[in-house]
């Protein structure tokens, strides 16, 4: 809400010398937050005065333009009292006119410094100003010609043009709809600014009583429209201009001046907070009827939009049908035009919820709707309508029709019981009951009783419904800045949960392994899933769709972290970071295709079953980890050659995480997008698949702008964390000597090393302490389609030194089992 200060001060007095900053500081502390103070003349300095054009000599120029060489009486503002010679390019004025003159030394908006300068053969000492040059709008058709009685030459022109007006922009919270009006703001000044007095309520006026002579109105839905006031003026002059003060105030408040009739309704809305609708009375046929719309009814609203109405919409009809969307927007057929001479003024109170729904349904945001849906004082309809009539009569030459229609009345407001010490208990401050009562009365409440107070909120505060709401009113007036600072004493906590600790450990582990964490948005589109090369029936294509995504490419919640990390990796490569290792942890969204999530009641705790059903209606959201690495894993340097990343780095990243959780990961070959079909590992823990790792498919690398051989992994961290070893057992070491045996086994290429190792491990028996694959060889010596796997085996007994031949026997047993299981042949 933007409010010109002069308008506020029309309705409340502050002690002389109170600065604008002091007023806004206080209002900010009591809840009307200052956004900005604007002043149209802020960027204008120096002499800007009324000038009277004395002479005006048109002088045609070679460039085809005609300039006017003028002498202007600026009183003694120029220090000499002599006429000022000024060249002016505009022609919309004549000798004798009063104009706006800026003298040398003045500065106009944009830092435009005015001096005396030679131009068109004259010394032009100043400038005659247009509205645009003063920052007062875009009008540059000519200079401003002031009314003949505006002032005398030499007088400061700023007050005449409203250039010295300060407009205060407040941020209004949704519960303070009353502050969307000068009335409400002035009242806040009264209760907030020390020494403020003399509140003059613009909605407090004597209004003529209802009579049977007004325009007939029938309200069929009294719940939707409890009060409807109609007044009429006739003989209105549609050409009458809107007075300057009104144009300035409406403009300052952020609205556009349109015509006197419309401007008056807006002016009264800004002043009182009560939205007003004006109909061209000559176009209204018969009685106004307020009812709910019927299915399929249509209306073309003032903005030209043809709308299909909903049975929830409140409408105003006449004999011709629907003529307006009550409280939200009028219709085209009865719109006030440049020929309107009779105006039917509607000031009605509408049900706020209905207003909110209609506004949302039809996507209409308007100044009227904003107020009606937040709640307006229902008791001021007659006053607001009367004020409109008064202004139309005063400025538009109209006559007030004697008829006054008032249908319905403002609903009674029930008292609320508020404990006298509630404000003290809520705030932790020493606030007496007397002080509470004083504050509540200051904001307009009627308070009776003691101990337990009976409080009736004022009609402009529909937000005050619960006892606790009243405590806020008291505390804000006592002062939020006085709330003491006291630390509560929580009971001993249990610290981070184990999963929370483990998640941190996972992040630290990966960072220690050289991976950099990234955070990306979880939104994807079909293009991302296609770029991954996912098969049409891939479960990762089963996505949760957003109803209102920011773009079609971000229409779904992602089922995999890979698009995000691959995109991020591509960007890094694009930025020249070609050796790269990144990771991301985040939840993915896996739809369960279950039923809707119920809207439960709020007046009680939901049952366990209701809560379980709520959770079951949500998609599964497991925590995933994704890693991507590209370029060199180890840089080349004086120590030797670079080592490019390989599929094994992706697997090892997952193994490092598993190690940190005390888990062992096994890898098995699998074909799965987006990985290279021959270089993808399915990773399992205790027989359960937890994720995949390997080299990214070349096509996917291309799609994401990544170099070939980029590697990636994605695992379900929830599965890993659930299995994390909680209490690790202390190891027992043997201090007897170790016996080492190396074996080299030749197997078919297709035999996984892990299978050979498993057979060796099993065959070697309990003396085996460790086994390590230290070489893989393919080539002539082992023949086509074969590979040689070299293992180092270490044997040791817990209780003795191994006897001669014991380790060799165990080794032979191991080789024998490997031969049996995998067809391995020991290389001689």
């Amino acid at each position, binding site marked *: 809400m933007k409010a010109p200060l002069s308008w506020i001060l029309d309705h409340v007095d502050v002690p002389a010398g109170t600065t604008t900053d002091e007023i806004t500081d206080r209002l900010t502390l009591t809840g009307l*937050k200052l956004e900005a103070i604007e002043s149209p003349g802020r960027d204008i300095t120096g002499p800007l005065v009324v000038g009277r054009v004395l002479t005006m000599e048109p002088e045609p120029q070679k460039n085809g333009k005609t300039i006017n060489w003028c002498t202007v009486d600026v009183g003694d503002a120029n220090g000499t009292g002599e006429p000022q010679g000024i060249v002016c390019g505009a022609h919309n004025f004549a000798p004798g006119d009063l104009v706006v003159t800026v003298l040398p030394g003045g500065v106009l908006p944009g830092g435009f410094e005015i001096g005396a300068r030679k131009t068109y053969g004259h010394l032009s000492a100043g400038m005659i100003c247009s509205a645009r040059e003063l920052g007062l709008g875009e009008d540059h058709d000519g200079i401003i010609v002031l009314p003949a009685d505006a002032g005398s030459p030499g007088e400061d022109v700023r007050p005449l043009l409203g250039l010295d007006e300060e407009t205060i922009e407040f941020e209004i919270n*949704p*519960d303070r709809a009353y502050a969307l009006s000068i009335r409400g703001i002035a009242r806040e000044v009264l209760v907030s600014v020390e020494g403020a007095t003399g509140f003059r309520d613009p909605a407090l006026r004597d209004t003529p009583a209802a009579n049977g002579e007004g325009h007939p109105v029938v309200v069929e839905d009294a719940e939707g429209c409890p009060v409807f006031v109609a007044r009429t003026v006739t003989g209105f002059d549609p050409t009458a201009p809107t007075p300057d003060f009104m144009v300035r105030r409406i403009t300052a408040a952020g609205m556009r001046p349109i015509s006197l009739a419309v401007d008056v309704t807006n002016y009264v809305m800004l002043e009182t907070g009560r939205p007003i609708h004006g109909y061209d009375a000559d176009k209204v046929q018969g009685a106004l009827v307020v009812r709910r719309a019927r299915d399929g009814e249509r209306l073309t609203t003032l903005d030209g939009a043809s709308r299909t109405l909903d049975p929830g919409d409140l409408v105003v009809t006449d004999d011709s049908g629907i003529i307006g969307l009550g409280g939200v927007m009028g219709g085209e057929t009865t719109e006030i035009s440049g020929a309107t001479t009779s105006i039917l003024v509607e000031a009605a109170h509408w049900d706020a919820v209905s207003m909110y729904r209609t506004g949302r349904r039809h996507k209409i945001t308007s100044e009227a709707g904003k107020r009606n849906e937040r709640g307006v004082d229902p008791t001021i309809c007659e006053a607001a309508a009367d004020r409109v009539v008064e202004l139309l009569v005063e400025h538009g030459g109209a006559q007030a029709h004697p008829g006054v229609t008032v249908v319905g009345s403002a609903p009674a407001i029930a008292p609320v019981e508020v404990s006298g010490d509630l404000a003290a208990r*809520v*705030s*932790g401050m020493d606030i007496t009951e007397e002080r509470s009562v004083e504050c509540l009365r200051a904001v307009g409440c009627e308070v009776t009783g003691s101990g337990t107070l009976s409080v009736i909120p004022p009609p402009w505060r529909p937000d005050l419904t*619960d006892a606790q709401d009243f*405590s806020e009113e008291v*505390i804000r007036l006592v002062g*939020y*800045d006085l709330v*003491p*600072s*006291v*630390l*509560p004493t*929580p*009971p001993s*906590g*249990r*610290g*981070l949960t184990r999963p929370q600790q483990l998640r*941190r450990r996972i*992040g*630290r582990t*990966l*960072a220690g*392994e*050289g991976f*950099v*964490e990234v*955070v*990306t*948005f979880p939104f994807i589109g079909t293009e991302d899933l296609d770029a991954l090369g996912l098969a049409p029936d891939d479960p990762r294509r089963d996505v*949760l*769709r*957003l*109803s209102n995504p920011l773009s079609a490419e971000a229409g779904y*919640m992602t089922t995999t972290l890979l698009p*995000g990390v691959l*995109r*991020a990796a591509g960007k890094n490569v694009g930025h020249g*970071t070609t*050796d790269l290792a990144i990771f991301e942890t985040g939840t993915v*969204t896996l739809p369960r295709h279950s039923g*809707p*999530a*119920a809207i*439960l009641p*709020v007046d*009680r*705790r939901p049952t366990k079953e209701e*809560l379980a059903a*709520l959770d079951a*209606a*949500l*998609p599964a*959201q497991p925590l995933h980890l994704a890693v991507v690495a590209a370029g060199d894993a*180890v*840089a080349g340097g004086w120590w030797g050659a670079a080592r490019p990343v390989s599929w094994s780095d992706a697997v090892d990243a997952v193994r490092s995480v598993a190690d940190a959780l005390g888990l062992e990961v096994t890898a098995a070959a699998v074909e799965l997008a987006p990985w290279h079909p021959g270089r993808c590992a399915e990773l399992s823990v205790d027989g359960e698949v937890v994720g995949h790792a390997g080299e990214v498919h070349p096509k996917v690398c291309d799609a994401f702008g990544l170099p070939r051989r980029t590697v990636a992994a994605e695992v379900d961290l929830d599965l890993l964390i659930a299995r994390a070893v909680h209490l690790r057992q202390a190891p027992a070491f043997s201090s007897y000597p170790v016996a080492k045996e190396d074996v080299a086994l030749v197997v078919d290429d297709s035999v996984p090393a892990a299978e050979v190792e498993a057979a060796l491990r099993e065959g070697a028996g309990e003396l085996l302490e460790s086994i390590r694959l230290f070489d893989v060889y393919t080539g002539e010596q082992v023949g086509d389609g074969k590979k040689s796997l070299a293992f180092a085996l270490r044997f040791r007994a817990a209780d003795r030194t191994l006897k001669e031949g014991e380790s060799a026997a165990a080794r032979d047993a191991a080789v024998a089992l490997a031969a049996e299981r995998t067809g391995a042949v020991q290389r001689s």
Partner: protein
Amino acid sequence: MSGPNTDYDPVEVTPLKSEEVEAMREAALAAIAGAADLDALKQVRLDHAGDRSPLALANREIGALPPQARKEAGQRVGQARGAINQALAARQVVLEAEHEERMLAEETVDVSLPTTRRPRGGRHPLTLQSELIADLFVAMGYEVAEGPVVEAEWLNFDALNLGPDHPARTMQDTFWTEPADHHVVLRTQTSPVQARTMLTRRPPIYVVCPGRVFRTDEYDATHSPMFHQVEGLVVDEGITMAHLKGTLDHFASQLFGDGITTRFRPSYFPFTEPSAEVDVKCFVCLGSGTGVDSDACRTCRGEGWIEWGGCGVVNPRVLVACGVDPEVYSGFAFGMGIDRSFMFRHNLEDLRPLFEGDVRFSSAFGTEI
């Protein structure tokens, strides 16, 4: 022609002649002293103390001497050999030390060579900021609560006193999911975690909930469709706004430095009543609003205070919806943007680097902030 071969043609020493033994000893000691390195000393040892050295040969002769001469000769030769062996051992120690010293000197490297074989890893600064905040509260005895980001409408709104027709719903531009009648949203705030906490625990409750939240804001320098919040919730007997103020003052001083306090301004949130905006005293200008060269402070734009978040006393309606008896318990709640806190704490003016995944950004913060 060849010269005399001392190895194979040893000088004959007559053990009885003391001057000869003495000469041999002197010659040996001189050779030992003159041995320049371990190799030379090895040769000297062979020549003067080896099996075929003159003294060794002389020693063998002793047995053939007449018994009366044997003792004297034995002593003479023995003493000489002892002296030589001693000198050899001493020289060995000296030469070994010299050798080691030379070896180590030769092995000198240029320690200024680069050593980084692979880039360092790092964690995302928002993760670190979240953990830092969580730790501050865990240190006070709070626990860290969590909940899903794809959330039931009821928990994100209704349970928090934001009914279906509450104007404040439009303040939070919400991502809705399909089908619309399933009432599932991307949480617009971490507040549903508060509701979940109250629904699953009994007071006293002291929790913080950091997490991701979503709004349909176009992505620019100051808006993001995804950002991070941390909310706190306390429900206990006798909790007041003063406890809220004390907690946030403590939080502010822990995060931004000693003496940094907070300021409350009245505000509106459906789930709290009374509600307040929290400003934190600018930790750069310490509230003066003045920056370098008496220009306005850049961090707080000359205000002296920075908008930090929202807070208030838990609305009794929320307590009721979450099954907590408002006659017995009261509570407070607060919420801050983690991203926003990070931005002004670390002088970041455009939030987009937080979500672009450029490793140069995260790496700059390492593993701790």
